């Protein structure tokens, strides 16, 4: 009996030990090989230089060829954590003003040269302190950086003028590619038209506006990666094309996002062939009145416009037709620093009693002397998703408080021209009255999220002045305590809502439909993130 019990115990221990030693099924499952073809829903990249560009049309084709110093963790959905990419580790000083990054050794550029802290320094200098005539789209985000130094060949140190929680997230922006110092020394504009990085894939061919092709970089510094032999990105601005490509299997994914109807069509056309991933998108669709034009100079009228919107009902209805869904304020919904749903509902225009909201809106209009049937034009962009659809919805919402609104859709050039009109010309006849506006950010960080709404921002299309907003922004930027920062952000939200300089409609909703053979890719709230494709693999046996 004892022998039998002993035998059983040994057997159980062996099995348990064996299970413990066994790799997880996921870790074991990755297969090597195959070429991933994906669609890039754009007419083409402007330039190929991530430091200078602001569009996914540059990120989607070029990210697989570059590494970052640190990145948003691609293995975890939600984009809530940061991990090193070229940085093996990093430390922060107790006053949170010095960041020390240790860089991996043995990293190679695609031309075979070694990557050291000298390259990181040259790249970061280009981003933070660009020389005269060289554009950096994110220079303003690094206003807190004082110096960047390299004490040794594998260490880079950032010293800040003041501690800021936004710094580390701005560092993880997917545009912050590490370039070769030697190449930059010879030609600062080299990367506008050429590609040469340390990424998982090496460039084979780039035909502008048509295709980009890469092959596995055998000297890539992460062992065993990438899994795939190569990638092909095909530029295609039209939905009918990329949906047909996905449906027929010519492409396995499109990483921007599909509208609900296209998702339904794909799933219906080839049941079981696709995997659907969705997330709230880090893009808010806003409405901005021109406060230099009557009657929108009156805060009561602006508040009435916001109060008329049934955001919760709109979420239910519009999410079936457009790429919008989540009700939120200025901070990315669901972020620890964002207000809770209950808290949000205390804001004017965010409550669930639509009838009461609209009665108040009509009362405000009456007090402001705006008659029933007052007419104005909503400036919008000639892009269906989600601009025109949400525009039509807003027109109907305002009709219900007695306003007659006409939507005027403009081609991109005219739309931007209207929004970028200088403050001195906001009173002219041609200036917009009320416009659709938006705020899309690459990383999920409240400071970055709200930077658009401060009066000094280049993206303040309402051209409003508000010292309170400036002060609150600067205070939260420097506030290291989480709860205090959250309170400041809430004050910022309340101030913006009370003044209604600009207000949210709904946040976008991102849905990616990819072929079931494509594995190892997680959706994030931003279409700029997770495009390195290092961990993606193809299960071509399926």
């Amino acid at each position, binding site marked *: 009996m004892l022998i039998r019990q002993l035998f059983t115990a040994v057997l159980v221990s062996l099995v348990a030990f064996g299970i413990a030693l066994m790799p997880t099924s996921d870790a074991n499952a990755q297969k090597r090989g195959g070429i991933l073809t994906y669609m890039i829903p754009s*007419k*083409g*990249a*402007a*330039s190929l230089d991530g430091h*200078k*560009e*602001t*569009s*996914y*049309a*540059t990120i989607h084709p070029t990210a697989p060829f570059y590494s970052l110093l640190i990145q948003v963790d691609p293995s975890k959905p939600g984009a809530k954590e940061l991990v090193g990419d070229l940085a093996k580790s990093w430390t922060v000083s107790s006053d949170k003003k010095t960041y020390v990054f240790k860089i991996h050794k043995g990293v190679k550029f695609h031309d075979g040269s070694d990557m050291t802290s000298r390259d990181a320094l040259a790249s970061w200098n280009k981003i933070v302190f660009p020389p*005269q*005539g060289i*554009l950096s*789209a*994110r*220079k*303003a*985000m690094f206003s807190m950086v004082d110096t960047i130094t390299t004490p040794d060949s594998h260490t880079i140190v950032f010293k800040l003028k003041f501690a800021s929680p936004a710094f580390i997230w701005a560092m993880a922006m997917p545009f912050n590619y590490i370039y070769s110092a030697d190449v930059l020394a010879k030609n600062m*504009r080299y990367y506008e*038209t050429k590609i040469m990085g340390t990424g998982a894939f090496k460039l084979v061919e780039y*035909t*502008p*506006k*048509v*295709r980009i092709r890469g092959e596995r970089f055998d000297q890539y510094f992460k062992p065993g990666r990438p899994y795939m032999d190569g990638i092909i990105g*095909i*530029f*295609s601005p*039209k939905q*009918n*094309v*990329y949906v*047909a*490509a996905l*449906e*027929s*299997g*010519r*492409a396995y994914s499109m990483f921007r996002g599909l509208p609900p109807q296209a998702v339904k069509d794909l799933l219906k*056309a*080839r049941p079981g062939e696709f995997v659907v991933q969705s997330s709230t998108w880090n893009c808010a669709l806003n409405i901005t009145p021109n406060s230099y034009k009557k009657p929108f100079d009156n805060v009561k009228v602006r508040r009435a416009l916001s109060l008329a919107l049934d955001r919760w009902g709109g979420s239910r209805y519009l999410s079936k037709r457009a790429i919008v869904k989540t009700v939120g304020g200025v901070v990315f919904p669901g972020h620890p620093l964002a207000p809770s749903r209950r808290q949000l509902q205390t804001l004017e225009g965010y409550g669930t009693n639509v009838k009461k909201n609209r009665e108040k809106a009509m009362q405000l209009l009456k007090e402001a002397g705006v008659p029933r049937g007052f007419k104005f034009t909503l400036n919008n962009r000639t892009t269906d998703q989600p601009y025109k659809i949400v525009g039509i919805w807003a027109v109907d919402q305002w009709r219900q408080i007695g306003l007659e609104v006409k939507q005027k859709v403009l*081609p*991109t*050039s*005219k739309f*931007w*021209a*209207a929004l*970028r009109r200088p403050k001195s010309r906001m009173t002219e006849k041609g200036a917009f009255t009320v416009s659709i506006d*938006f*705020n*899309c*950010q*690459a990383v999920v960080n409240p400071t970055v999220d709200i*930077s658009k709404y401060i009066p000094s921002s*280049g*993206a303040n299309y309402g051209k409003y002045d508000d010292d309170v907003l400036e002060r609150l922004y600067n205070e939260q930027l420097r506030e290291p305590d989480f709860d205090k920062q959250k309170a400041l952000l809430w004050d910022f939200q309340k101030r913006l809502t009370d003044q209604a300089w600009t207000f949210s409609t709904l946040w976008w909703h991102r849905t990616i439909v990819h072929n079931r053979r494509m594995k190892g890719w997680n959706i994030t709230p931003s279409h*700029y993130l997770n495009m390195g494709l290092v961990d993606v693999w193809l299960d071509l046996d399926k």
Partner: protein
Amino acid sequence: MFPTMFFVSVVVFFLMQMIPGDPVELKMLGDGSGDFSPEQLTLERERYGLNDHPVIQFTNWMFGVVQLDFGVSILTDRRVSEDIAIALPLSFQIAIMSTLLATLLAIPLGTLAALRQDTWVDYLIRIFSIAGIATPGFFLGIMMIIGILVITNSQWAPPFDYKPIWVDPWYNLSMLIWPALATGYRYSAVAMRMTRSTVLEVLREDYIRTARAKGLVEKIIINRHALTNAMLPVITVIGIEFAFLIGGLVVTEQVFNLAGIGNLFVTAVELKDYMVVQALVLIVAFVFVFTNFFIDILYAWLDPRIRYA
């Protein structure tokens, strides 16, 4: 030829100046995730010479063109000639394929319709050609893609990225045959109706009656006397359509994801990329002028009465 091209360039350049919006802002704003200071934007404008007076901008551009330098695209920072070198072969190939298809369909069917005037053959061909004129090429293109997906049970679709015919002939043809069919059908319909009416007209001429009276074989009458003389207006239509296809296939190019001249044109106009628009205008004007010149030479070859001094 040169005065026409110069005139077109001047008109288009100054029309472009009237479109609101700044090309540098349009380029730099992207999806709105960047924030550039006005000083940065001014410097970038300076780099492209956009701060200069429009007349100086135009003169500088013209000076470059004379040296065959079309300048740098404001949007992509590449040489304009590089962008055109990608788009032009594609547009030319589609134009050639469509023209071949249209000619092969239009001339035999148009002639047959004329010879069998008011019979069921004529009616059938006329219905076919009227349907072709009434159906826009892009609509036919969308229907083709949907039809292919339905027929193949979503297992196949044409390729959506262009490879030159000398790189991969099969891939190239399996992509371009569809837009060539979509545009070629409409194109053939126009030429078919023109062929039918001109053949009918020629068949009523005295010299055809004379040829028949002297007992000439009908085949020779049709091929040598009727068709040769009926071809002059048909060639004009084919030539104009060919030139149109080089830059005018905007929507069809979008339907089939073709990075041709039409698409390049629209993007450049949208983003106020003057350098590209100007170069494309010159190219399209050149194609039109050259095609007309070529047609004039064909006239002389087909009709010995026509001689140019």
